[in-house]
């Protein structure tokens, strides 16, 4: 990884650090949500973009993090500790689940994850003594972190998630994960410890949504099972990753920025239509840009040999 390749990232990050100085609270909230989507999209990218294990239930970890964060805050933990622990709990939940579900392949894994998310939602609904069930948990403003604190936490998460992807991408782990994506058995056969790698990727990809969920609970101040275990949120992550370019470092960032900005610009004007338009956009991307926006980049053209193998 050269300096040149991370330079745009550093510039972006610095801009984001400086943003609160010039943005209104509302703009800050917009940025906060954007950063959250970047963090989530990158975590999805880590497991699904890299290894090809398409998770339709990554919101399960978001939900777990949100509930853990909210409850810990209520029990008197300081907010930052609640976020840490929220992420930790997401990790603790993810690791064993990963061991179990990552044995499944293709659509089986995808749908099992969807099922896990639903089970998460049901647990949050049914475990009334802990979670207050479908009533949801309203958080008392006295204990909540400020907007600025939330913002910088989310920024840290987004940067962390993106760096993680960058690090993995240009690392042996990344190569191995991509080999798993292409052909898991063959990867095993060239010495890749697929189970270990997958579980590592899966666990890492669960930590960030866990932490992001906690921050979400804090800036929204109210969570209920339906709003945090939301399959639609998961689909948004997928849209952003694929739009930008799955398995790439900057693709999900570009995708998130594009979708959120477009949403912000159109939604107030055409409330009923903009969702249908989002649908049209998604269809158009799949049909005309199946490899994402980054695939348009000129340096990604394929190389072609002009000599046959074995020819003298």
């Amino acid at each position: 990884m050269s300096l040149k390749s991370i330079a745009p990232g550093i510039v972006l990050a610095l801009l984001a650090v400086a943003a609160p100085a010039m943005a209104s609270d509302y703009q800050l909230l917009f940025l906060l949500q954007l950063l959250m989507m970047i963090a989530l999209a990158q975590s999805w990218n880590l497991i699904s973009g890299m290894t090809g294990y398409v998770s339709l239930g990554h919101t399960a970890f978001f939900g777990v993090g949100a509930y853990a964060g909210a409850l810990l805050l209520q029990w008197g933990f300081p907010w930052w500790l609640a976020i840490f622990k929220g992420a930790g709990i997401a990790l603790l939940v993810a690791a064993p689940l990963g061991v179990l579900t990552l044995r499944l392949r293709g659509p089986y894994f995808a749908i099992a994850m969807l099922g896990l998310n639903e089970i998460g939602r049901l647990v949050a609904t049914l475990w009334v003594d802990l979670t207050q069930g479908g009533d949801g948990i309203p958080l008392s403003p006295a204990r909540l972190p400020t907007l600025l604190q939330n913002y910088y936490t989310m920024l840290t998460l987004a940067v962390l998630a993106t760096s993680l992807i960058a690090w993995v991408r240009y690392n042996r782990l990344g190569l191995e994960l991509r080999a798993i994506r292409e052909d898991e058995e063959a990867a095993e056969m060239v010495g890749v410890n697929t189970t270990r790698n997958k579980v590592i990727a899966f666990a890492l990809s669960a930590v960030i949504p866990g932490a992001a969920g906690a921050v979400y609970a804090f800036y929204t101040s109210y969570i209920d099972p339906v709003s945090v275990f939301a399959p639609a949120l998961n689909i948004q992550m997928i849209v952003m990753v694929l739009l930008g370019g799955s398995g790439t470092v900057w693709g999900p960032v570009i995708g998130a920025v594009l979708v959120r900005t477009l949403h912000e610009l159109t939604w107030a004007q055409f409330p009923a239509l903009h969702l249908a338009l989002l649908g049209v956009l998604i269809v158009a991307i799949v049909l005309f840009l199946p490899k994402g926006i980054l695939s348009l980049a000129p340096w990604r053209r394929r190389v072609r040999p002009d000599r046959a193998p074995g020819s003298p």
Partner: protein
Amino acid sequence: MTAAALLEVRDVHRDFGGVHALSGVTLQVARGRITGMIGPNGSGKTTLFQVVSGIDRGATGQVFLDGEPILGLRPSQIYQRGLARTFQLSRVFPQLTVLENLMVAGHRHDRAVRERAIGLLEKVGLREYSAVAGSDLSYGQQRLVEFLRVLMSDPALILLDEPAAGVNPTLRNTLWDMVRHLNGQGTTFFVIEHDMGVIADLCDDVYVLSEGQVIAHGDFETVRGNDTVLAAYFGKTAAHRGTEND
């Protein structure tokens, strides 16, 4: 004999539903030699490789690599112990480049590994294809990449499942030369091949499988003279024509 055997298979059984793909296979691959395995289509050769390499973990019996039992281990663990193999239907990673395809198989991730990969590609004239995606190779090219992949980690034992099928005759010679060369340096090979010329040339020792059982064993000439083998494998005419490719 046992001491010299690098790979030892003892009474291995494998059923698929009602099909007995392997029924009590016992064989040994001697250290430092090239052992061949022939047999009609569907006789269980590939299945044996699947079992030995840990991909297929539904078999019973015993398999020893260098005296250590390996049945039940994961493929990656077996690979770490020095056994590498190719697949009969090539399994290149379609969206990794040719170079990445080889580098994945290196134990490390550094310049030396990279250079070794490039060197191997050079040998079969695929160097120019380093940056081409695996899926964009022709059938034969994919076979070659897969063959090179097993050479990336200096394995002690290499299992080859018809590595030359679909490879053009000139390159086949290169491929077999590489096998011979590595064997000269001490690598042990266990090869499935339908080309009798190659088996006759290369193999010190040949096993014949039929319907999941070893029906003959010995050097090529002995095996070829065996009536059961004649009937099961060569068919009447071919037996007398001997090798095919000369």
